[in-house]
C-alpha cells in the first residue's frame, strides 16, 4: 500500500487537505446552484412582454380621464350630495322675542 510507506504525519496532512477540499467544493456547488437559479430568473424576466413606456403613459392618462373623481370638481362637477357638508345639527337659537312669560 502506498499509504503504509508514508509517515503518519503526512497521512494526517492529506486527510486535512481532503476535508478542506470537500468543504470548498461544497461551497462552490452552492454558488453554482445560486448562479443557475439567478440566470433562470433573468431568462424568465427576459420573457416578460413589455410595452413601451409611452404606451403605458398614454393608458394611464386615459384611465385618469375615464374615472370619475369627486376631488376634481372642475372636470367632474360637484357631487349632488356631499356628506361632509351636511348642516350641523344645532338647536335653533331662541331669541328673546319668542319667549313670552304669561
Amino acid at each position, binding site marked *: 500500500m502506498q499509504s503504509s510507506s508514508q509517515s503518519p504525519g503526512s497521512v494526517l496532512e492529506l486527510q486535512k487537505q481532503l476535508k478542506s477540499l470537500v468543504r470548498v467544493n461544497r461551497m*462552490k456547488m452552492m454558488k*453554482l446552484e445560486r448562479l443557475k437559479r439567478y*440566470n433562470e430568473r433573468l431568462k424568465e424576466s427576459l420573457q416578460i412582454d413589455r410595452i413601451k413606456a409611452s404606451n*403605458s*403613459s398614454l393608458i394611464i392618462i386615459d384611465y*385618469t380621464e375615464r374615472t370619475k*373623481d369627486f376631488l376634481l370638481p372642475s372636470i367632474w362637477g360637484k357631487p349632488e350630495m356631499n356628506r361632509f*357638508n351636511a348642516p*350641523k345639527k344645532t338647536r335653533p337659537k331662541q331669541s328673546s322675542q319668542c319667549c313670552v312669560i304669561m
Partner: protein
Amino acid sequence: MDSQAVAQQMEISKLLNKQINVAQMECKNLTIQLSRIKQNGRDATLQSLANNCGQSLSTVNLRRYRTLKGHFDKVADIAWLPDGRHIVSASQDGFLLVWDSTNGFKKELIELDDPWVMCCDVSHDGRLVATGGLENACIVYKMSIKGTGPQQQSPLGADGSRKSSLLSVFKGHKEYISGLSFLAGSSSQIVTCSGDRSSILWDTTKGGQVSTFYGHLGDVLSLSPNPTDPNIFVTCSCDRRALLWDKRSPVSVRRYVSADNCDASVVRFFPDGHSFACGSDDGTIKLFDLRSDGDIATYGIENVRQYAMHNNIAPILMSPKSFSSNEEAKIAMGSIAGSMESSLESSIDNPGVISMSFSKSGRLMLTSYAEYSSVMITDTITGQILGSMGGHSDVVSSICVSDDGLGVATGSRDYTVNIWSV
C-alpha cells in the same frame, strides 16, 4: 487511498470552477441584454406626454370639514371604513378610535395591546381592524360598528370590566411591523412587512401565517396591495428596492431600484393596479409601471420646496423665531412648542416622503413630507403642484382617500385627524 480522493476532489473543483465561470458569463450577458431591453422601452415619460391629456388643471382646493380631536399622542395611521363615512385612527397613546367623519363623533374606542402602534388597516367588510407595531405582533380586533346608525360604545362592559374585542394575535415577525394591509377585497388575508426583512401573509380564518416572503436586504418599510388583484402586493425597503410579490410565489416577481442612495420609504399602488409610486428618503417619488417594467415619472422635492416658498408654507424644521411671520405657523407654534424637539428628531429620523395617496382616478397625488406640515397636491400627469392642504401643526403621518373618492383624511403627529373634501 487518501491521495486518490484528493486528486478526485481537485478534479471536481476544477470542473466546478469552469462551470461557475460559464454561469457567470451567462449572467453578465443576460443582465446586459435585460438592461438593453429595458432601456429600449423607456421612450417617454408621463410628463412628456402630458399634452395628450384633454383635461387641464390649474389649482385644486380642498376644504377642511372636521378636525377630529381625542388622541393625546401622535396619530400613527388612519384608515377609512368601506362606507366612506367612518374612520379608524391608531395613535401612540395606545388607543384606536373609530370616528364618524361627517359629524366628528367618536363611535368606538379600542385599547391596544401594543401601545407602540405603527400601522392599521380595515378589512373589506369593515368588520375588522388590524394593527402592527414595535412589539412585532399583528393584532386583529373586531369592531362593533355596523351600518351608519348612531351607536354608543363604552370601553367598559356591563359588569364594569374592560371589554376586549381581540380576534387574532399573529406572532412570527422578529422585528417591528412597519406596515400592513388587507389584500384587495379580502376580509381575512393580511400582509405585514417588517424590520426583519420579510413580509408575511396571515389568514384570520386559518388563525396563522400562510406564507413568508424573503428577498429584501434591509428593513421592509412599507407595502401596498394591488387594488384590482387580490394576489399582488408591492413592498419597499431600506435596500432602495421596491419588490413586487405574488402571494402564490415565495420569491419576488419583479424588482425595481427606486432610489440611488437612500431608503425607499413609502409605496402606494396607482388605482388602476398597473403601476405604483415609490417615495424615498430624499423626497423623490417615482412612478413605476408594470406593463412597461420601468419608471415612467419622477416627482422631485425641488418642486415642493419652490411651491412652499411661493405660498409661504413654512418648513417644520425652522427655528421658532422665523415662524412669527406666518399666520398659520403662529397657531402651530402654540401647540407644538413642547414637541418641537421631538418633531425635529423624528424628521431627522425619517426624512423625505412620509405618506402618499392617490385620488380615485389617480390624477391627484397627495403627499406629505417630513419638512412640511401641509399636504401637497400634485398633478400625477404633469407633475405640477396644484395646491396644498394646510391645517396640521406637525408632520402628517398618514393620508387616506375614501373608497368613493369624496373624502380625504389626514392623520398627524399633532394628535389630530383632519377630514377634507371638495
